[in-house]
């Protein structure tokens, strides 16, 4: 009862609880929060307290003293640390409700990877309840991404969406508000970073952190050869000498580094196309597939997929926020039309 009354003063939220970033979309206000899914925990002996959440915590990642650990509670799109995820959600939900009079009790729609298990989904649901949500709905990520990208999901027409997130790449074939086929590979932005770290270590004998790898990826990363060649100066610890050294990387090298994870994504897309029913496959061949998620920002990734599959490939508008926006739209549709595409209650 109390929760319901508090709910009147809370807004409906759509949360894209991602491995790398958490986004919150509020109906009528758009994206209100976009922060890294990182929590810094301070230890006082046996006691723990939250030192920072989000962008502040991310700056601490890999730079913490002994009594602080900065952790990413999500791994591969699912919860790796339940309590910390709950704390993080609590913080984010509170942050977007700055009314302060009642503790917020919003209705929350959370996106889950389509290949996540019941246990993983339950964990996400429970942590959202634990963070103060009144009702929690779950929606499969590619479905939210497709709605957010503006695909005609409700039509009897196949749409394929490739959502390259931080932890997973979700590929789904959608028709009539339902997922016809889905494929999820645990490869995403994080794996790109790891691949770059491994490449630099192998080729330059230097160790760089994941934040540096991410910066390299953002600035010069590319998925398809033939583009403009860019360079970046980075500093890493030379393994042989043990001292920090500066060196220059170019986009060709990064392309080489990313070859393996990219090949896995291409493979998954091809598998999905192979498994498509012929009618839907022809729809996709005609109109093409859509890339969403942070991975869509990797230069020329659409060209890579287009050349590999021989299909038109387009990048959705504002690919980073597609899932959160789509979730918000799904919530609206649910209210207005009794829209039934939510995976489970």
């Amino acid at each position, binding site marked *: 009862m109390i929760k319901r009354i508090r709910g009147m003063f809370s807004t409906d939220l759509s949360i894209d609880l991602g491995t790398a970033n958490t986004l919150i979309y509020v109906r*009528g206000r758009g994206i209100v929060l976009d922060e890294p899914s990182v929590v810094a925990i301070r230890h006082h002996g046996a006691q723990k307290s939250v030192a920072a959440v989000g962008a502040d915590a991310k700056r601490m990642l890999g730079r913490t003293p002994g009594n602080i650990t900065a952790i990413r509670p999500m791994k591969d799109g699912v919860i790796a640390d339940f309590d910390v995820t709950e704390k993080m959600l609590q913080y984010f939900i509170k942050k977007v409700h700055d009314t302060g009079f009642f503790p917020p009790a919003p209705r929350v729609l959370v996106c889950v990877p389509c290949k996540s298990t019941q246990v993983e989904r339950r964990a996400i649901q429970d942590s959202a309840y634990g963070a103060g949500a009144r009702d929690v709905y779950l929606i499969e990520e590619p479905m939210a991404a497709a709605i957010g990208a*503006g*695909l005609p999901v409700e039509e009897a027409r196949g749409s394929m969406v490739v959502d390259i997130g931080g932890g997973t790449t979700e590929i789904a074939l959608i028709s009539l508000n339902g997922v016809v086929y889905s494929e999820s590979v645990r490869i995403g932005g994080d794996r790109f970073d790891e691949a770059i770290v491994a490449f630099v270590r192998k080729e330059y004998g230097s160790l760089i952190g994941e934040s540096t790898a991410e910066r390299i990826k953002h600035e010069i990363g590319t998925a398809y050869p033939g583009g403009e060649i860019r360079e970046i100066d980075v500093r890493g610890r030379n393994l042989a000498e043990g001292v920090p050294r500066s060196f220059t990387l170019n986009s060709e090298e990064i392309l080489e580094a990313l070859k393996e994870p990219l090949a896995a994504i291409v493979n998954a897309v091809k598998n999905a196309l192979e498994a498509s029913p012929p009618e839907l496959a022809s729809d996709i061949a*005609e109109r*093409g597939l*859509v890339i969403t998620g942070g991975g869509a920002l990797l230069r020329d990734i659409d060209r890579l997929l287009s050349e590999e599959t021989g299909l*038109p490939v387009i990048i959705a*508008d504002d690919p980073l926020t597609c899932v959160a926006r789509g979730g918000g739209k799904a919530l609206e549709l649910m209210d*207005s039309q009794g829209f039934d595409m939510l995976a489970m209650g």
Partner: protein
Amino acid sequence: MSDKMVVLPGERCRKAREAMGWTTAEAAKRMHLSQTYLLALEADDYERLPEATFVKGYLKNYARLLGLPADEVANTFQQMVNEDAFDKPLELPSLPRKPALLGRPLVWVSLLVLIGVLAVIFWPQGSSETGSDTLAPVEEMAEEPEQSEDIEQPVESEVGEAEPFESAMADVDAEPSAEIDAGQEVADVTDETVAEEPAVDPDMLASNGLDRLVLDLSADCWMEIRDANGRVLRQGVKPAGALMRVDGKAPFSLKIGNAAAISELFLNGEVVTLPTDSPGSVVNLTLP
């Protein structure tokens, strides 16, 4: 808005393609797009193309292929879409309206609920101190000014009507269940309508072989009253301030959930004192 000034995105692409000396088939192949779509794209004929999301994506890709500023071309298209609003899927029709409609009643409903909650919170505090004392006068005040004298008469006449009926039933004595019903009906009628003073003289009841219990409650109280034959005359939680009359054959067996709730108890007009009146104590009593 000055459509003539703006170069349509498809046209711009077509000019760039022609400048590069590509045929449409060649461009379509490079784009992995069907030639029909490409031609429609160049002709800016969006009716023949899929949803705006796709068109925008195609334009971006095409512009990039041709070395045009992709975002600029896509933005021109976006502006056209926003102006013409020809393409529904982009804005998901009727969606922006619904929340607005939904939002306002919600605020009102929440306000009403809040008022209701405040009322519930503060009501018992005000009334519990004065309890039945305040409630009874209010009822009297409401009725008395107009028909304070009239009220006695209908009551008596009602009881008077009921009694002959009762006695007739007793005389017939055919169905015991009917007797109970009649007895309860009488009691219900009296409960609701009788004013403060017990106006019916006990002798009349005695002549019918019935006894009367009168209970005055100062607080909500659960009770069970049975007559000599063990039939249940009253059972359940009775509200504070109720003046209850129970007619039946003595001895009555009473089970009262909260002794303190009984402010007065009469049997055939005589005061009966309860063995205890401590709050919350249960009383089992047989009268007389």
